């Protein structure tokens, strides 16, 4: 045996062992370091050795991230430090301060100053300080800034107060007032604790008790708590609190805990979250589906609206829904998410194949992607919510994959008219009409509750659109970009005994690419103004009922114009009053993308039902008109206001139009031959496009954007009658 070799081997082995020891126990090289950003996920920590879970508070979904923390210990009282982006917590097994980086491996820190052999289960971080609390022991804080230079720097716990009477299992810092909030497990009272003095304020009963082992905030100031026993996640709205909120207002706040989602249950739980992060991260594709009923039904995340994690297998219809960043309200709003421009209409799994008639049965056709559980709510009394008795008409019905015909009974007290419904399909049962679900889809649908034996005619379809596009410089023809007013539009006729008893007109303003202010109205040719029931006529702007079609100071304008022979219903006196633009125009200049934000609904009941032979054909006569007292071009002597109208070709204007304008500029109208609103080349100032439409961007002529319009016109519509479709367009000349 070679003694040299032996000596070398021994020395070498010791060196290797030393290196392993250094790297394994103290070596920062073995750790991944802090998080790279403030994560939108919440984290849940359970067990010994501690396992880390990522939890989506929106839906309650959770997944194991790491079950090997590199140490045999439980870590509790965790909080996310936004200064250095580490998670800090207390090692309850070895009574040490610890932190975890993005790999969720435990790094033990060098802390002194805490009572011996005392463990802490409650902690959080704010402003680079870690706070620990234990009932009957006290509230402590630890300055974490020395760790910026040296991970082994000695840290010292400072006692804030020994007065600690509240039974807490977690607390969390509010991102706006930097106070600690926690719920007493046995009383369910919510407390605010001042981290400087340790004094507390009792804010009231949350209505829930239990072991709330995990508490979090989001960036808006909503407080979340997860109950160990059943995993239920509750939310308390503390979003109105700021550092300036007076005590009286704090004590008057409604702090009722509202069920938010179903998360994991555990007998040992702790939670932490970066409080400055929004609940849904808009930098990554959303995997959450929201509904799109009006906001009174509770649709947005702020309203705890219904939402589902898109699991790829549980959905309604033939294809999975797209992800939404929030619940957007309004007609077809699921289509028009600004943050998710690729969003499409995914409300296609529910079909109302029979009428909803008060007191009678109705059939709903439901297409399920796989087996699952369906619940549905109907606003039978049309009061804008799904809260009333009997409004959950479908309760946990088991569906099979494919088409399912589901029957339900409409209550005899149901109120006739338009209303809303919500369908939720999931692998979970017991869902409410609000709150998160860990699988499936929510579909919100407008419904018509009808008296018996009504028929309906929809133009162009029950939930589809034509597009009306106007040039607002009539009687001058200018850039012909057909985007000065762009309105999606549809009509519904309600018939009894082959007579029309009511028409509904819906519109969605798409663009205002002109310089002038215009109103929007519809003339019902052949229908007398006196036949419109002005007591029950209804105008909604963004689902809110309007008394007038417009106001300006003390001036008001009626919805049904009184001094007209033909009925004229007005949706708006000035479309610009309903929108604000990020650019000069509204949604017409390149790069000026913003969410569509104005829709209207006109419901026009007739006193004497109208014979079909007397009915004008849809789209009737929709037109724009000058807003009163506003400039509308040099060509007019003064402000033409309401006396200026711009209609589709050969639609005669109303009695309010100033016929002296005929023949001015490029107009060649001739009422004697029923020729209206055409140029000398017979071109119009307004077009009806029989589908949804992508309009030209600012000052891009229609012919450049849609070259086949030429053939369509020259062939009188026999060729290129799909000229307006997107695959016929030259994309760089479109707004988007």
């Amino acid at each position, binding site marked *: 045996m070679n003694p040299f070799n032996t000596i070398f081997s021994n020395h070498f082995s010791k060196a290797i062992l030393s290196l392993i020891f250094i790297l394994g126990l103290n070596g920062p090289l073995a750790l991944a370091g802090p998080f790279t950003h403030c994560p939108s996920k919440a984290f849940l920590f359970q067990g010994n050795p501690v396992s880390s879970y990522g939890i989506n508070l929106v839906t309650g979904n959770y997944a194991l991230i790491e079950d090997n923390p590199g140490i045999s210990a439980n870590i509790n009282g965790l909080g996310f430090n936004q200064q250095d982006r580490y998670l800090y917590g207390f090692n309850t097994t070895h009574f040490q301060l610890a932190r975890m980086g993005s790999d969720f491996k435990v790094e033990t820190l060098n802390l002194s100053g805490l009572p011996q052999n005392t463990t802490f289960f409650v902690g959080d971080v704010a402003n680079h300080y870690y706070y620990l609390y234990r009932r009957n022991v006290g509230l402590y804080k630890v300055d974490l800034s020395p760790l910026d230079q040296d991970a082994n720097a000695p840290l010292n716990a400072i006692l804030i107060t020994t007065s600690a009477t509240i039974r807490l299992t977690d607390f969390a810092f509010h991102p706006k007032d930097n106070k600690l909030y926690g719920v007493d497990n046995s009383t369910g009272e919510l407390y605010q604790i001042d981290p400087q003095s340790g004094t507390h304020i009792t804010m009231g009963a949350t209505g829930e008790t239990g072991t709330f082992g995990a508490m979090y905030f989001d960036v808006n100031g909503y407080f979340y708590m997860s109950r160990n026993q059943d995993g239920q996640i509750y939310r308390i709205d503390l979003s109105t609190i700021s550092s300036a909120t007076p005590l009286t207002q704090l004590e008057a706040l409604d702090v009722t805990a509202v069920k938010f989602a179903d998360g994991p249950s555990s007998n040992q739980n702790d939670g932490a979250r970066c409080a400055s992060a929004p609940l849904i991260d808009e930098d990554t594709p959303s995997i959450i589906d929201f509904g799109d009923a009006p906001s009174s039904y509770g649709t947005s995340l702020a309203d705890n609206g219904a939402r589902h994690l898109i699991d790829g297998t549980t959905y309604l219809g*033939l294809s999975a829904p797209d992800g939404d960043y929030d619940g957007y309200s309004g007609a077809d709003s699921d289509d028009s998410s600004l943050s998710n421009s690729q969003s499409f209409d995914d409300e296609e799994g529910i*079909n109302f194949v029979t009428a909803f008639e008060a007191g009678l049965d109705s059939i709903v056709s439901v297409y399920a992607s796989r087996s699952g559980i369906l619940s549905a709510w109907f606003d039978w009394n049309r009061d804008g919510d799904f809260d009333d008795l009997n409004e959950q008409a479908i309760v946990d019905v088991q569906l099979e994959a494919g088409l399912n015909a589901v029957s339900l009974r409409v209550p005899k007290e149901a109120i006739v008219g338009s209303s809303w419904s919500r369908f939720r399909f999931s692998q979970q049962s017991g869902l409410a009409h609000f709150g998160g679900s860990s699988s499936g889809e929510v579909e919100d649908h407008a419904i018509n509750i009808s008296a018996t034996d009504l028929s309906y005619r929809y133009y*162009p379809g029950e939930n589809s659109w034509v597009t009306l596009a106007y040039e607002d410089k009539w009687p001058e023809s200018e850039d012909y970009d057909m985007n000065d007013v762009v309105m999606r539009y549809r009509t519904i006729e309600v018939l009894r005994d082959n007579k029309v008893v009511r028409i509904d007109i819906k519109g969605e303003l798409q663009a205002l690419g002109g310089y002038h202010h215009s109103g929007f109205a519809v003339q019902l040719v052949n229908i007398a103004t006196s036949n419109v029931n002005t007591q029950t006529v209804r105008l909604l702007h963004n689902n809110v009922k309007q008394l007038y079609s417009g106001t300006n100071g003390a001036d008001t304008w009626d919805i049904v114009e009184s001094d007209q022979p033909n009925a004229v219903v007005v949706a708006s006196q000035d479309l610009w009053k309903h929108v604000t633009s990020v650019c000069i125009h509204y949604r017409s200049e390149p790069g000026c993308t913003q969410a569509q934000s104005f829709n209207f609904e006109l419901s026009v009941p007739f006193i004497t039902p109208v014979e079909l032979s007397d009915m004008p054909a849809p789209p009737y006569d929709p037109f724009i008109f000058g807003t009163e007292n506003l400039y509308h071009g040099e060509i007019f002597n003064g402000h033409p206001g309401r006396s200026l109208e711009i209609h589709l070709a050969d639609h005669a204007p109303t009695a309010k139009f100033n016929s002296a304008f005929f023949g001015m500029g490029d107009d060649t109208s001739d009422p004697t031959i029923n020729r209206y609103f055409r140029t000398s080349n*017979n071109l119009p100032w307004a077009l009806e496009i029989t589908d949804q439409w992508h309009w030209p961007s600012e000052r891009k002529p229609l012919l450049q954007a849609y070259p086949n319009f030429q053939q369509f016109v020259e062939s009188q519509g026999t060729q290129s009658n799909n000229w307006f*479709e997107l*695959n016929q*367009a030259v994309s760089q000349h479109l707004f988007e």
Partner: protein
Amino acid sequence: MQSPNQRKMTTLTIFSFVVLVSLYGCGGGSGESDKSAVTPEAIDKPVEVTQLAINDLVAAPDFNFTSKSNIIVKLNVEQYQGRRSYINVYRHYQMMSDGSYYPDGASRVVSGPLVDGHFTQTFTGFNKQQQYLVEIWTYDNLPPQQQEITVTNDQLVWY
């Protein structure tokens, strides 16, 4: 009496043969659903386009810039006499693997009850579309009766 609007809509009887071919080509005769309507890509580069100025484009003096016509849907179905039943007409739908049709609810154009097995109604059709899905539902959880019907003489007739 015909309204001025209705008079203008009775146009364009020379229907495009090209459109008929393309409908058959996509198998099943369904028009585009709203979802597929957003799918087609617009042209990225200018195609060889004669850049006609709008002032040089001349339309016929009575052309109304749409191609629509009134379509009558007629049902007279003996088997539904005395049974509560309901009909729907859709523009867009697709054929499923079992041969049934899946309608796009957003595209429903007409709906109403059959009265003693009868239903007649007029609606505004687009000339580029020649086929519609008509279905009859009863209130007994049975699957609907469905027919894909081609417009003939401006009528959809259930046989």
